[in-house]
């Protein structure tokens, strides 16, 4: 039987689906008896979603895009003589 400390240590790997079978069953057995760790698991799931949602895509600003397009179009010249 694992304790809360060990359960917390495995929690992120569990959420990432990266735990092996045995650690998963030990972890899940712990959850069945521990309200606290269930709460923490739920919170970490939320935390993951919130962090992803608050890290939005950062589109290329138009002026940067036009410089990159010149690079793509110009190819070799541009890279051998940078301004």
């Amino acid at each position, binding site marked *: 039987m694992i304790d809360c*400390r060990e359960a*917390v*240590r495995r929690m*992120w*790997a569990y959420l*990432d689906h*990266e735990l092996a079978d045995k650690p998963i069953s030990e972890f899940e057995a712990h959850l069945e008896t521990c309200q606290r760790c269930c*709460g*923490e698991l739920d*919170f*970490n799931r*939320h*935390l*993951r979603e*919130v*962090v*992803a949602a*608050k*890290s*939005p*895509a*950062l*589109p*290329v*600003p138009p002026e*940067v*895009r036009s*410089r*990159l397009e010149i*690079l*793509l*179009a110009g*190819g070799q010249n541009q*890279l051998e003589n940078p301004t």
Partner: protein
Amino acid sequence: MTIVLETRATPSARLIPTAAAAPERPPFADVVREHLDGLYGFCVRLANHATDAEDLVQETLIRAMRAYDGLRDPARAKGWLFAIATNVWRDQSRARRREVTTVPIDTPDGDDDTFSLFQTIAMEDPFPYSDELHLDFLRLFRDEDVSAVFALITPAFRLPLILTVVHGFSCKEAAAILEIPLGTLLSRLHRGRKQLERGLWDYAVANGLVTTAEGVQS
């Protein structure tokens, strides 16, 4: 009839995928355009700075252009571009003598490893009248707050987080991009998450998003 015989006479063409696929390879610029926003966002988060990010994208494209013939499967271009960007960023950081590693990267750090944001919020109880204590804490953060917290995470641990959480790569793909074994990736990812948990709490206290008895005194 002759045509049928001729096509059957060259079955080996199908067995040489690179030779056969080469003419159908999409132009480099098209492949890049498809991933340019993602690549730029990744570079901004790597460099923590818009000007550095543009440099990083430019150098990445230059290297990618030269290496494009070596990309066997253009469908994997996104991970390939991110891997090149990571290498460019490492080289640039080394050249500028930034990002000096001050913590041992692959040995466990007891302090980081056991911090629990969940437990800290429960113990410090920053919203005494809330029945959604933990969710209220997360609601305090705006996009720029989350970016600021990310920026403080040790780069070796920040990268796996950015790749998986922000850009949606699997752990296996992230390990391939960073050219490290999966086990190493997982332990760095774990430590990145723990630094993120601690960073969110410290940021909230330092910026007055929450007040704690201790925070007021210190």
